[in-house]
């Protein structure tokens, strides 16, 4: 084929070499922005706690070249070997605070990708691991393990993933009628989720130990408290499997959203492709649930956030989700671990960074082609800037952010972000939720 030299020149994606147009300025900006926000949130996380560091100390420790180039350390983190002797600051940063950040990033990426795939496969803006029963199945499995089958407790992550998979298969089976349809899948998801959630609630009444109830609550609301490199070792392989498959499958999602008839006319085996891509979403979502419990709303709002910036091409939406998911979770986890004021501080930083970067992009786009300046970007800059300024104004009035001593599960924070954002989306986009 005549494209070999072009293909080797750029191996980043299947089509990059041929259609350089699809990795565009908004997508790159979004990735850069997410990277910056994620990094800032991570450094904030690493700095605060009982052993306090300055921002630069945190930076130095995180990017310590000696540590980063030490294979023994990586062996300890990634393979579970014994940790070599390290100074206390490094231990605190790398062995206590970094695993939480690292797991959070993968949870965010996995949930974002899973939500994006589910929304494309069902051609439904409201689809997510939540609406398709995956969360309910995983939650029920966790509760059953904690309350009834206590001997399986050490296998909790595996059980959670299995529960999610079984629930989705059940949803698929209920929806199946010589083929499935987006609406049937969503309705079946509601049926399964309703039954499973009732069973979950019932199990809470059976539990006699308050500690068990606490653990179960943490699982069903989604929490990163106490995660270790061990959890990272659980989610990493699943992410390395699922995310590249999702990127490769993005082109097929684009064809699938043209509708089943058109996809079939174009030679796609619709049921097989839909099932296969759903399986990828199950793998990524379940692995996130396995380490962090049910962190709600991330899978639902990440795809929407990404779409408002990069448009409907799933090659871009998937890539964007891989960046935005971690950023959202990193910010939410600041709120979860360091409290409301630090969360507002992080929101302020993220908002102003977003406004700044996208103003630059808008100016650049306007300079290239004045037609391309989209009202969306104006709204984005105004909205993000406004939220950022409000957050800072509040913090200035109340005398600067302070770290809270109480932690809340990260799922509560994502719910508090996700609910209002979704409300905003519903008001803005009248066609949202059309089946």
């Amino acid at each position: 084929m005549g494209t070999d030299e072009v293909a080797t020149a750029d191996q980043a994606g299947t089509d990059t070499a041929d259609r350089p147009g699809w990795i565009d300025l908004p997508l790159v900006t979004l990735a850069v922005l997410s990277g910056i926000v994620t990094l800032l949130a991570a450094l904030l996380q690493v700095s605060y706690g009982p052993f306090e560091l300055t921002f630069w100390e945190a930076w130095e420790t995180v990017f310590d070249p000696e540590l980063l180039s030490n294979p023994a350390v990586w062996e300890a983190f990634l393979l579970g070997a014994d940790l070599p002797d390290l100074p206390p600051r490094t231990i605190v940063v790398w062995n206590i605070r970094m695993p939480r950040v690292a797991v959070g990033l993968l949870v965010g990426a996995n949930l974002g990708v899973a939500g994006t795939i589910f929304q494309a496969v069902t051609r439904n803006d409201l689809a997510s691991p939540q609406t398709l029963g995956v969360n309910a199945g995983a939650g029920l499995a966790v509760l059953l393990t904690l309350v009834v089958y206590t001997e399986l407790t050490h296998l909790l992550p595996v059980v959670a993933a299995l529960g999610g998979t079984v629930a989705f298969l059940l949803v698929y089976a209920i929806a199946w009628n010589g083929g499935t349809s987006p609406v049937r899948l969503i309705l079946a998801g509601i049926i399964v989720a309703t039954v499973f959630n009732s069973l979950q609630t019932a199990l809470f009444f059976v539990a006699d130990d308050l500690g068990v109830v606490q653990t179960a609550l943490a699982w069903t609301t989604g929490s990163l408290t106490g995660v270790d490199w061990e959890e990272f070792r659980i989610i990493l392989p699943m992410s390395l499997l699922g995310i590249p498959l999702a990127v490769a499958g993005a082109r097929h999602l684009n064809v699938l959203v043209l509708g089943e008839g058109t996809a079939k006319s174009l030679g796609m085996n619709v049921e097989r492709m839909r099932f296969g891509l759903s399986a990828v979403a199950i793998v990524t979502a379940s692995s996130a649930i396995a380490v962090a419990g049910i962190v709600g709303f991330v899978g639902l709002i990440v795809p929407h956030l990404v779409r408002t910036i990069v448009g409907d091409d799933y090659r871009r939406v998937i890539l964007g989700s891989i960046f935005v998911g971690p950023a959202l979770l990193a910010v939410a986890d600041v709120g979860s671990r360091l409290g409301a004021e630090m969360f507002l501080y992080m929101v302020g930083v993220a908002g102003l960074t977003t406004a700044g970067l996208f103003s630059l992009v808008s100016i650049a786009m306007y300079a290239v082609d004045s037609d391309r300046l989209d009202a969306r970007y104006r709204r984005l800059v105004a909205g993000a800037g406004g939220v950022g300024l409000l957050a800072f104004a509040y913090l200035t009035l109340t005398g600067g952010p302070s770290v809270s001593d109480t932690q809340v599960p990260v799922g509560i924070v994502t719910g508090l972000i996700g609910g209002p954002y979704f409300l905003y989306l519903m008001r803005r986009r009248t066609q949202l939720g059309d089946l």
Partner: protein
Amino acid sequence: MATHDTDGTGPDSERTATEASARDSALSATDLAVSYPSSDGPVVTVDRIDIPEGEITALVGPNGSGKSTIIKALADQLAPDRGEILLEGERLGSYGDKELARELGHLSQENDAPASISVEDLVFHGRYPYRGFFGAVDADDRDAVERAIDLAGVDHLREENVGNLSGGQKQLAFIAMVLAQETDVLLLDEPTTYLDLHHQLRVMETVQRLNDERDVTVAVVLHDIAQAARFADYLVALDDGEVYDWGPPADVVTEALLRDVFDVEAAVNYTPEPEITPKRSL
């Protein structure tokens, strides 16, 4: 077969079987019965239907006569209850999914694409059957997309988002997508319905060019019998799920057809093409 026809399919149905042998047909169906899951019994029962190789065949008939159903069955979108459909002499089921999409293009009546996809990206989807799961776009794909965009006359819309197009422009963009499949047979389901006159003609002229220049076999469902008579080489007139008549427009379009099938009293003048002047509904 038509010779065993007992329920009076139409005056000329015997010709259907005799004139067009399976060899000349790009696509043919025999003893076909098609139903929907929600319908009681078959919606369409056809003894034989032929889409002759290298010609434009128009399927005409009133609402509910089964035009779209037949097209769906021929496009393998709807599994028939019984009957055999042959594409280039091979059973439809013997083709693989992508293999079929390289031989047979199909554009359904309603098409929808995400609003912020560009026309060019949409047309590239037409190359789907030529690519593997991880397959990249190659020079052949790009050439085919260029030809399709050119043939459908949507070059000026290439960068435009599908969501910003008018109904007619959108239809042409979808036609370009199907053209990028570079199939020998093309099935179009009411491609001109709901379009303004300009775009109706643009669509039909594209179809005609495709047939002239690339010898593509076309079967097209048309709402407007006058339009069908003007553009098609053959007409298949359907009535209540059965073939009423089949043949060149001058033979098929008669005052009797308009009366029996369309319930319309009309005058037909042959100049030599049939021209229809509708008078009143019956």
